């Protein structure tokens, strides 16, 4: 029997205080809704802070641009797996949300006429794929930092109520499946509290930490996905993970695509600009999946650089040092600190590194969580933890920050409408999920022997890295499924020796691992099942023949995966090829 757990009541709960959570919070707070934002870290420490290159919007400040071109690029980038209604919504809203952000005080760089500075980026083209266009709105190479701080600052102005260093443990659903809130733990005291609200938004970010080598922060542990999966919500398209072409070799730290946008070139051990062979038109600014595969191919064929021939070089030594200092100062700092190289003088060693999760909690473009044909009442998701799906099988650079703004805002609006229409009084909290959550913590507190958390996490990360990387192989995927299910057993018996009630980070890491493993299973099982190559998911047995160009099999696989935690069941749902108002972007073989 659970002893009385305090209940705190709100109109809205937001879990996560990165870009999506803060944008949604602003919408709710400014509309006068009583809103609680829970975050494991102080808001400006959220991983949005690490985004560098820009946020896309067809402002056309330097040259003509149009949201329909942005939409075309996004559909093509997604390898046609993105839902075109959501993509239209995002690209059409982009100029509005970016201008709003500027009004909030975002310190964008400027053109000589005082408008927002825009730079070229991978896959951003004008006139339906014709030639590169300047669409990425940037604040030097610290766009995410500038954006996250601007959003936090605006929330300070709006008096948003933050619960800083609170970790949400589980979603609470009633007998009908409607969402009532979350169970959460205050990290400083280990106190467990029920947060109840009419509407709950997950904006918990990605789970890149399922891989050993990742650009992601330590906190990116897929907490929202773990909570959703445990509460019976399926996860969509989890086989699609973006490997960013330019992580610092050995360190994993991100080097923005904006470096190539400003003129950076990738070179192999022969000094060759090899992207000319793989993407004759877009070259170094082809889509990320294309560039990452080209790099791995170069390395596999013996043209890697360094003593172990295990990376390639990103060269900007030909750029004006002034441009590097003013447009890429953060990159120079990272390169000096993490690669020991001043990029003004020598090229940066880089290697494809796990970066972004295209899949997530299934939602529509309003941020409502959708399972089958049904909306899960009271439940919303936005940002990297959600799958609207705008990124499909491969995300375009700068569409992630845009996603946060557009869907953070639309979720906030949907929540406001829902809260206004909901009965004034909150019902009794259903205790089944609460008790399961309390039991998970109790198990860790009582377990006196078992698996070391670090060992289990390493086993998971190594399995994901080896079996579900840039190139995937049928036999390795099959073996990967077996191995990840073994790791799951390790996670069930993790043990921590530290039983302190004060800021117990060992316990937090154990709880985070229980979320990560759900994401890892979803990824491996979904990847093994998808017998084609599309976007970031590329496997050896999907043949590049006329019926399935690049291995993409639209006849059988133009559909979204849904993984259910219960019995690891997979089901599929159709891709929405019908935009809201624009003509559909017709299926086509993808080349850059």
């Amino acid at each position: 029997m659970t002893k009385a757990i305090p209940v705190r009541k709100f109109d809205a709960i937001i879990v996560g205080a990165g870009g999506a959570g803060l944008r949604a919070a602003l919408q709710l707070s400014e509309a006068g809704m009583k809103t609680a934002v829970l975050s494991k870290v102080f808001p400006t420490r959220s991983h949005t802070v690490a985004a560098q290159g820009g946020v896309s919007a067809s402002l056309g400040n330097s040259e003509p641009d149009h949201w329909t071109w942005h939409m075309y690029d996004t559909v093509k980038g997604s390898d046609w797996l993105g839902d075109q209604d959501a993509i239209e919504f995002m690209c059409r809203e982009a100029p509005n949300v970016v201008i709003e952000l500027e009004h909030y005080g975002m310190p964008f760089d400027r053109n000589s006429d005082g408008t927002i500075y825009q730079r070229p980026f991978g896959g951003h083209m004008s006139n339906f794929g014709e030639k590169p266009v300047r669409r990425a709105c940037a604040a030097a190479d610290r766009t995410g930092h500038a954006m996250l701080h601007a959003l936090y600052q605006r929330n300070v102005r709006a008096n948003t109520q933050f619960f800083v260093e609170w970790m949400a443990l589980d979603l609470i659903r009633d007998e009908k499946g409607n969402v009532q809130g979350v169970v959460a733990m205050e990290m400083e005291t280990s106190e467990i509290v029920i947060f109840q609200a009419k509407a709950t938004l997950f904006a918990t970010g990605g789970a890149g930490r399922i891989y050993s080598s990742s650009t992601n922060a330590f906190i990116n542990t897929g907490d929202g996905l773990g909570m959703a999966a445990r509460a019976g919500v399926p996860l969509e398209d989890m086989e699609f993970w973006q490997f960013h072409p330019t992580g610092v070799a050995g360190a994993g730290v991100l080097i923005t695509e904006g470096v190539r946008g400003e003129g950076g070139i990738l070179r192999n051990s022969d000094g060759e600009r090899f992207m000319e062979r793989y993407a004759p038109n877009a070259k170094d600014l082809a889509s990320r999946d294309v560039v990452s595969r080209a790099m791995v191919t170069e390395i596999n064929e013996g043209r890697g650089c360094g003593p172990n021939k295990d990376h390639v070089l990103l060269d900007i030594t030909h750029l004006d040092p002034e441009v590097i200092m003013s447009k890429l100062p953060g990159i120079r700092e990272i390169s000096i600190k993490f690669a020991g190289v001043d990029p003004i003088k020598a090229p940066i060693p880089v290697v494809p590194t796990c970066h972004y999760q295209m899949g997530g909690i299934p939602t529509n473009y309003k941020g409502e969580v959708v399972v089958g044909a049904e909306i899960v009442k009271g439940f919303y998701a936005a940002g990297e933890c959600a799958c609207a799906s705008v990124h499909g099988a491969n995300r375009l650079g700068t569409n992630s920050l845009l996603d946060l703004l557009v869907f953070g805002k639309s979720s906030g609006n949907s929540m406001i409408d829902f809260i206004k229409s909901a009965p004034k009084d909150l019902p009794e909290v259903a205790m089944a999920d609460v008790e399961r959550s309390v039991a998970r913590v109790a198990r860790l507190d009582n377990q006196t022997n078992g698996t070391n958390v670090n060992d289990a996490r390493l086993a998971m990360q190594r399995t994901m890295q080896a079996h579900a990387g840039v190139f995937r192989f049928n036999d390795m995927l099959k073996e990967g499924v077996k191995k990840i299910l073994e790791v799951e057993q390790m996670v069930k018996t993790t043990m921590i020796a530290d039983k302190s009630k004060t800021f117990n980070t060992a316990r937090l890491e154990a709880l985070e691992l229980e979320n990560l493993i759900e994401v890892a299973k979803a990824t491996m099982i979904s990847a093994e099942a998808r017998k084609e190559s599309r976007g970031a998911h590329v496997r050896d047995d999907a043949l590049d023949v006329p019926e399935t160009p690049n291995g993409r099999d639209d006849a059988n696989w133009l559909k979204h995966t849904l993984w259910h935690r219960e019995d690891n069941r997979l089901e599929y749902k159709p891709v929405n090829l019908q935009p809201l108002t624009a003509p559909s972007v017709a299926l086509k073989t993808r080349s850059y």
Partner: protein
Amino acid sequence: MTTQSVKFRVYRYDPDKDAKPYMQDISVEVDTTTERKLLDALVKLKVVDESLSFRRSCREGVCGSDAMNINGKNGLACITDIDTLKQPIEVRPLPGLPVIRDLIVDMTQFFKQYHSIKPYVINDSPAPDRERLQSQEDRKELDGLYECILCACCSTSCPSFWWNPDKFVGPAGLLAAYRFIADTRDEATSQRLDDLEDPYRLFRCHSIMNCVDVCPKELNPTKAIGKIKDLMVKRIS
């Protein structure tokens, strides 16, 4: 793989079991090719002793989580090279703030001061349909100001902040105050100056420049504070 043993003296305190803080001598093996930063070593240390508690997130110097006192000087563990540090490396929590546990401090007072300067653009003029235009020169005024990551290295190295954390805004908060004063889109300069015209809030800064010395982002709060003081003088004369 080459390994190296790194020696530490770490500040430890868990109010659940320790009557008072103590220094723990401990060493850890690191792989010198991939584990070159202090944070890498601390993460390794936590594998040896999982009870060691510290904050960390981005591990690339942009989130501001892992500020601590390293061999007597405040800095970020994630961008501090192990081989630049004298061993045993003495690691303590940021000075002047209450310790919650080990290297984790209570930052309430620090954020309270940051919030006190109204850290947002104040502009009551109706917003245009497009962006508010700003010249490149005016935008340049924000460089060296907006990049602050709120790690608190500066404020917790400042004696004036140690003595009066409730009254003196501190270097981080004042840097932010000037960031908004300097922004051509902000219309509240005089209100902001009024708010800082106080023997404590601004004028406890005695320009000893500890803040500049420790800032991991190489920002210069002392310079920003000087500019605020200049503006105050200007508006009197």
